[in-house]
């Protein structure tokens, strides 16, 4: 604990300043607590969505593997590769920013993530249903991967911010505000003591 007698001037103006600072700090503490609680709520909501998205992603990945296994076996690895080389452009991903309760988190958008038989460069008439299904499955997988990546990065960022906010809240609650209140008590005690001394001195002077 700091040596309050050395750091604090026991004056009325100091007491007034200190009271004002305590009020401001308490207000900031309450706001930070609300921010912490809000961030935690957002985190829990997103975590539940993320868990569900991860389970779906694993399922989608298994489906995609199965479909390409069947396409490679029935149509042949050469036919699958032949269909793959026709693509002139691949999926593109753009990362921008958005704000959740003052926390900057990534927003991931993609173009060309999913394709259909009409948008793929190969012809329709001679196409294979197995290769179609395989391409569709991987299109869905890519979309889900992008979505999951955004969620994971957002969760990570929220968690970092929750930790930082929690530390600040704890610092205010257990260190800063108690110290300020202690200083306030000290000043009040000293002022009362000084007042008593003054009163006694005046009494003695009067009696003389």
């Amino acid at each position, binding site marked *: 604990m700091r040596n309050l007698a050395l750091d604090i001037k026991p004056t009325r103006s100091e007491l007034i300043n200190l009271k004002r600072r305590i009020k401001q700090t308490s207000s900031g503490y309450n706001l930070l607590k609300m921010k912490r609680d809000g961030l935690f709520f957002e985190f829990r909501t997103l975590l539940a969505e993320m868990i569900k998205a991860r389970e779906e992603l694993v399922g989608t990945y298994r489906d995609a593997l199965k479909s390409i296994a069947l396409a490679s*076996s029935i149509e042949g*690895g050469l036919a699958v590769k032949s269909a793959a080389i026709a693509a002139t452009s691949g999926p593109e991903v753009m990362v921008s920013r958005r704000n959740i309760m003052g926390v900057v988190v990534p927003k991931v958008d993609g173009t060309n993530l999913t394709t259909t038989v009409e948008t793929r460069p*190969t012809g*329709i*008439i001679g196409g294979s249903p197995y290769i*179609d299904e395989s391409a569709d499955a991987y299109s869905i997988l890519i979309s889900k991967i992008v979505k999951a990546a955004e969620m994971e990065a957002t969760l990570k960022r929220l968690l970092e911010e929750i930790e930082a906010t929690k530390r600040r809240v704890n610092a205010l609650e257990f260190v800063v505000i108690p110290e300020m209140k202690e200083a306030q008590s000290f000043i009040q005690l000293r002022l009362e003591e000084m007042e008593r001394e003054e009163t006694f001195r005046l009494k003695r002077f009067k009696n003389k």
Partner: protein
Amino acid sequence: MLGQASRRSNICNASARAKARKASLIDSTRMRQLLQTGPESIGASIGELGYRNEMDIYSTRMSGADAVEAALFHNLDNDLSDVMNFCQGPLKSIVAIYVDRFAYEKAKTVLRAVNGGCSDELIESQILPSENPMNAVWLDIVRTTETLHEAASSMAGTPWGKELAKLDDSDATLGEMEDALDRHYYNHALKVSKGRDSNTHLVKYIRTEIDHRNIINQFRELRQNISTEKRLQMVIHGGRLSQSVMTQVSQANSTKEILEALRRSNAFDETGFDEAIEKSDALGSLDPIATLLSHKRHDLLRSFSYLNPVSVFPVIYYIERKVLEIQNLRLLVRGKTIGLTSEVLEAHMDF
């Protein structure tokens, strides 16, 4: 493979040679034994069944299922070339229908490679292996052309060259060229099959193939929510199903509606379709329908080969059985490597 026809067909000689070759194909018993073979030894087993030479060519550079598949298709190209060499006259043109379909697929691969800007090394090493001399002409096109239209122009001497030339304007896309190739294949096949040495069963078989291609395409297009107009445009003409039936099929909004529309035609064999559609809807895959159509085609060809022992059919039947053998072996190798069960593999094989 794309040779000129001389004046007379040697149907008797060619049929006899085709039957002799067919006797050396892997029978259903041996194929079922291969089905039970483990993935480690299936490659060696295939080598013992007549594919050793080709497997030795590819084993230096490739391994596993890729090497086996490349070897199988190299063997197929050699075999088909031999068959074309022993056919003469209009018979050769008819047999070419079944041999040239692989050339059409290679043409599409070349167009895709050029369109996608794929490296020559990737094409040579993985898709059209340079070890196969039949791929030389295709690799040459990949190496010497930069744009889709240059590649299409390089195919000027082929049966489909004129068809591609009609599309030779700056707006034709890869998809349009591929669709044009597929339409040309079927139109050409019908035209040749109706020419000299024509056979009503052969015409029926080709028209059935067209119907099956149209049917599976309608199911594919329905799944992909393609518009009715586009679905009607994609119909290949010349099948046994009439234009009015195909118009109704292209307007159907569900798999059951497609089946109802198809039932209106006497030319449609609906056996097994109810079950296949139910399985397809449950699985979310067209696999049951595609498998059913494939089995039906093979059954039809088998029945025709027995009805017409001295005709073009034994030669075509041999080619289709050889292709089927290659497809079955490829299915076994790839399927076992990937871990598909024996039940799944057997369901997709034809014996």
